[in-house]
């Protein structure tokens, strides 16, 4: 009689940082795609007339839209930073396993700083 099933109680979930950066890059990208027509609509409103410009300014000052703007700019910023890491890795910088982890930590740190910076800026204007 031999044991056919060997169950080792290893923690089934672990969260490798490069994987987190990768999925956030993808999610921010998807969000940004749906944002394109909204941004264009905003541009149109800002250029059409002085009234629509001022109206847009008032809308963007509302608490709900400040939060939305925060999300928008954070997505853009994160996608930008993670995209830069992608391009650097294409140029063979940080392609090793350790390099990937270090790069992921840098991206997440910068994104965290950006989140606080944006929060400060958007609630002080």
């Amino acid at each position, binding site marked *: 009689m031999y044991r056919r099933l060997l169950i080792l109680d290893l923690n089934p979930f672990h969260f490798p940082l490069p994987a987190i950066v990768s999925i956030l890059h993808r999610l921010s*990208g*998807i969000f940004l795609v749906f944002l394109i*027509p909204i941004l264009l609509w905003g541009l149109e409103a800002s250029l059409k007339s002085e009234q629509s410009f001022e109206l847009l300014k008032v809308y963007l000052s509302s608490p709900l839209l400040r939060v939305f703007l925060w999300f928008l700019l954070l997505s853009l910023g994160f996608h*930008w930073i993670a995209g830069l890491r992608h391009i650097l890795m294409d140029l063979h910088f940080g392609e090793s396993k350790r390099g990937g982890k270090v790069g992921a930590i840098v991206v997440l740190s910068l994104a965290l700083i950006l989140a606080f910076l944006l929060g400060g800026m958007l609630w002080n204007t």
Partner: protein
Amino acid sequence: MEYLGSLGRTGLFDWLLQRLTALLLAVYALFWVVYFIIQKELNYLHWKNLFIQPEMRFITVLVLLSLLIHAWIGIWIVITDYLKFWFFRYFAFALFLLGFCYCFIFGMSILWGH
């Protein structure tokens, strides 16, 4: 090998196109960061005069085109990753294709429409 929805004959061309458009978009985004840091108070006149200049309009249209190409390649990757059944996949392609064409025509009308 040509793949439905890809922009180039090989995956390599799409890969390069995505990087090139990314660089253009990255620089354009930085322009706006600098602009909003310098411009403390935004008024309509200043804003309107920025977009009246033909150089600004031309570059913005170019950037919009790059954005849609970059977004298409990206969304192509996501669609082919998650939608395997032909109907859902082609429907998604058609939807985004239509949406992107609308965005481009809309953008042109905003910047060059009068």
